[in-house]
């Protein structure tokens, strides 16, 4: 709306995910690895362990090549990417937290300098001074995590900020401390995991065994404590935020499960390194790293998934619409756009008038400004696939667009705009996957009717409003489904055929009478 939209064919969200996940996997190593370097140096010097020192020197080189080069550039990369994909959110964050970022920059500057001096200082500095550089590096790196953690968690749980707009209110938000503890543990675990990689190529078996055991001291306890910290983290997330991870599209729950499974695998593998530490192979260390990478990526996906439909919680939707009208929002809140319409409000649309002949073109532009920050046509979260799967014709799409905010446990922002504009968007979506009215009405078995028309909001569950409230008498039930908006005004105005309604009611009654049907049954789709 306010900014042009970068049309990334394979999905803007996917691009951010790739940049962000690769970055965090390295940046957390940059924090924990710093402590690892100094403590390992201290240990080696105390024990007069020349071989360990020699390895640590090589490991420092590896550390710098990974963190100072890739870590630093990918960090800038996140910033580049969010500016390209979510400029409104970025602008809001920058104006709110520029001093946070400026402080982080001071730490970052110290961090990079200290890392290079620590690397080059191996041949040049006395032991004491060298370790000082290591400590400075680690403290600066950790402090940069302390700062950025405030901004990341603010986006998930903005706390009192939405009311008072105070820097520290948003910064020390409800998930600040659990997230900091969680990320600290990840950093320590990764320090040990990365060390396995350079240890694995050591020829000196005794040395390798020493390093592997030492790494396990970092990895095993840190991985073991992560589930506890994760519980604390989840506990601090408001119920309504976490709720979107459950229900008919439990992306958050699925990724959380994946994170736990991969975490357990990584933990077991980390323990296994202790069985024959002297013979640990490079491939094995890479496998541990891969599992940790998967766990970490899944964790970040959970965070992103439960944040939906917001990019900044209770403030800005993922598609850059403000969730409530606030002074200075430029007319880009949902309510304002509902009243004024997308075409007069948006800055970056070419078609300004909706006519009988340009519906599809206008719909395409609305798709771009309202949907494309998360969806594509054919690729990542591709709508063509969804429409084909559910056999929605244009009318059905139009009706469903009216209920977006309720679909999938509120993971989507509502459609904003006039009814005519919604019709145009439906026309466009129908043009990418034309489904005729006949095809949309073709399904006649109850389960398919449910899947295609109801499962986006309703679960097969005794406590679900549909299963709880629908009349048991087949005729009365079928009759009540004729006009959904009289059942509940915010429901999409779907029109099912008589046959479909009868089949749906029959199927619902069958579910309800099933013995195992209870409030814990899993959802449809």
């Amino acid at each position: 709306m306010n900014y042009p939209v970068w049309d990334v064919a394979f999905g803007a969200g996917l691009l951010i995910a790739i940049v962000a996940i690769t970055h965090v996997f390295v940046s957390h190593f940059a924090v924990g690895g710093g402590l690892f370097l100094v403590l390992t140096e201290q240990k080696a010097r105390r024990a007069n362990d020349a071989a360990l020192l020699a390895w640590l020197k090589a490991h420092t080189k590896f550390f710098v090549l990974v963190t100072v080069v890739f870590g630093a550039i990918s960090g800038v990369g996140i910033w580049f990417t969010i500016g390209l994909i979510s400029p409104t959110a970025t602008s809001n964050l920058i104006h709110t937290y520029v001093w946070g970022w400026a402080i982080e920059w001071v730490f970052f500057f110290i961090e990079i300098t200290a890392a290079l001096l620590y690397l080059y200082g191996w041949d040049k500095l006395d032991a004491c001074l060298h370790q000082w550089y290591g400590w400075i590096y680690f403290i600066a790196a950790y402090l940069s995590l302390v700062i950025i953690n405030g901004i990341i968690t603010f986006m998930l749980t903005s706390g009192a900020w939405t009311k008072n707009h105070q820097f520290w209110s948003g910064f020390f938000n409800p998930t600040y401390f659990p997230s900091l503890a969680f990320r600290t543990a990840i950093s320590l675990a990764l320090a040990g995991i990365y060390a396995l990689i350079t240890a694995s190529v050591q020829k000196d078996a005794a040395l390798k065994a020493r390093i592997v055991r030492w790494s396990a001291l970092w990895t095993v306890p840190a991985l073991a404590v992560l589930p506890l910290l994760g519980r604390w983290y989840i506990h601090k997330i408001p119920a309504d935020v976490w709720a979107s991870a459950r229900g008919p599209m439990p992306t958050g729950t699925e990724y959380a499960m994946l994170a736990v499974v991969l975490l357990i695998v990584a933990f077991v593998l980390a323990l296994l390194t202790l069985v024959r530490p002297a013979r640990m192979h490079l491939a094995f260390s890479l496998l541990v790293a891969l599992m940790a990478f998967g766990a970490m990526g899944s964790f970040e996906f959970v965070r992103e998934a439960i944040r939906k439909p917001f990019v900044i919680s209770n403030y800005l939707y993922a598609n850059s619409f403000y969730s409530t009208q606030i002074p200075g929002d430029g007319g880009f809140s949902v309510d304002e756009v509902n009243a004024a319409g997308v075409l007069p409000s948006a800055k970056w649309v070419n078609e300004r008038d909706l006519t009988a002949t340009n519906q599809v073109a206008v719909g395409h532009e609305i798709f771009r400004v309202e949907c494309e920050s998360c969806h594509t046509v054919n690729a990542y979260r591709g709508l063509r696939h969804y429409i084909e799967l559910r056999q929605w014709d244009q009318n059905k799409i139009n009706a469903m667009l009216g209920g977006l905010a309720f679909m999938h446990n509120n993971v989507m922002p509502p459609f904003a705009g006039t009814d005519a504009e919604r019709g145009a968007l439906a026309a466009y979506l129908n043009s990418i996957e034309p489904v005729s009215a006949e095809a949309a009405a073709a399904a006649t078995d109850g389960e398919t009717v449910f899947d295609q028309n109801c499962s986006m909001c309703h679960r097969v569950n005794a406590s679900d409003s549909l299963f709880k409230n629908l009349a048991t008498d087949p005729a009365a039930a079928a009759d009540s489904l004729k006009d959904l908006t009289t059942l509940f005004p915010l429901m999409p105005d779907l029109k099912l055929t008589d046959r479909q309604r009868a089949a749906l009611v029959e199927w619902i009654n069958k579910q309800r009478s099933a013995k195992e049907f209870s409030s814990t049954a899993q959802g449809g789709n």
Partner: protein
Amino acid sequence: MMQTNLIPSLDPNPLPAPYWLFKLLLIVTFFLHIIAMNFMLGGGVLALVAKWRAKNPASGNRMFFDLARKLPSLLPATITLGIAPLLFVQVLYGQFFYTSSILMAWPWFLVLVMLTVAYYGFYYVSFRAGEKPGKAGGVMLCSVVLVTLIGFFFSNNITLSQTPSRWAAKYFANPSGWNLNLSEPTLFPRYLHFFTAAIAVGGIFVVFMALANWKRDKEYAGQLLQFGGKTFMYATMAQFVVGVIFLVSLPRDLRMLFMGDNPLATTLLLVGITGAMAAIFLMSGALRTGNIRVAAVYVPAILAVVILCMSVMRDILRDAYLRPYFRPEQFAVTTQWAVLPLFLALFVGGVILWLVMMRRYGLLGGKKGNEPPKAQMASTD
């Protein structure tokens, strides 16, 4: 047309400090960034020149690797010092900067990829120091070409951010982010102006290396002085031509700002030109008499003033470009007193800590260890 309607609105959050403070930080950090960038890019180009144009291959290779060893530190210095102006430009000019970035999103995104590859290339070359050059020259060339291209993309983005009248046609023809700003008449002169400056300032970096070697290896230091000094002189002379072309390429009303219409801009231009001429004159004398002090202290001091003048002129030009769309008064300001003093304190503390770290290491005039350093940070010693 509805071009002015395209300018994105500000977001609802006020500026968290007065406009002038962000402006000051923007100019100062840009000035530091551009010096580091010049050392890095100029140093990279001159390393290649030294290797391929040296009459004596041995000394050419030595210069090549001496310069190459500095690049893995100069590149992060450039990036790190570049983050701050990138932050402050978003604070003040986000409406323009995000938009132009989105219009050329893919080239802008590819900057990151190219930077990563160039960076690893620099490391590869520096790790081969002391060995046979092998592929080092080719790798260095690739890295230098990549960072040169990155600079070109930056010039595209900055010029595009300043010319909103070009936005609509580009975006509606191609929303997938594959635009550049090649039709902009000031693009190539502007880019060439920056590139030439990088060569000249890179020459000064070589002169600093001469100073660092002055007591240890006089003959080699003399070669470095001649190479760096001459490069500086010729590039700065060329800059008079390039600079005039850039000035002429500007729209007339903007050009006239520097030729009388805006007293500050005109004064800065005159100071810049005078300073550059004085620097050439001094450098020429220093090369004749072999006076390292003049070459490595006085000339750089004058040059720093010139670069600062140019940085301010650049800012005046941006504001002139954006005059129809942007007014400092547009911002509401609510200074975040709860955090600004913390930043200022940490900033001062950070600078002090950084200086202590550098000096304790033996850089920036600090006491050196027993043996000459094998590798150094970006330094002026």
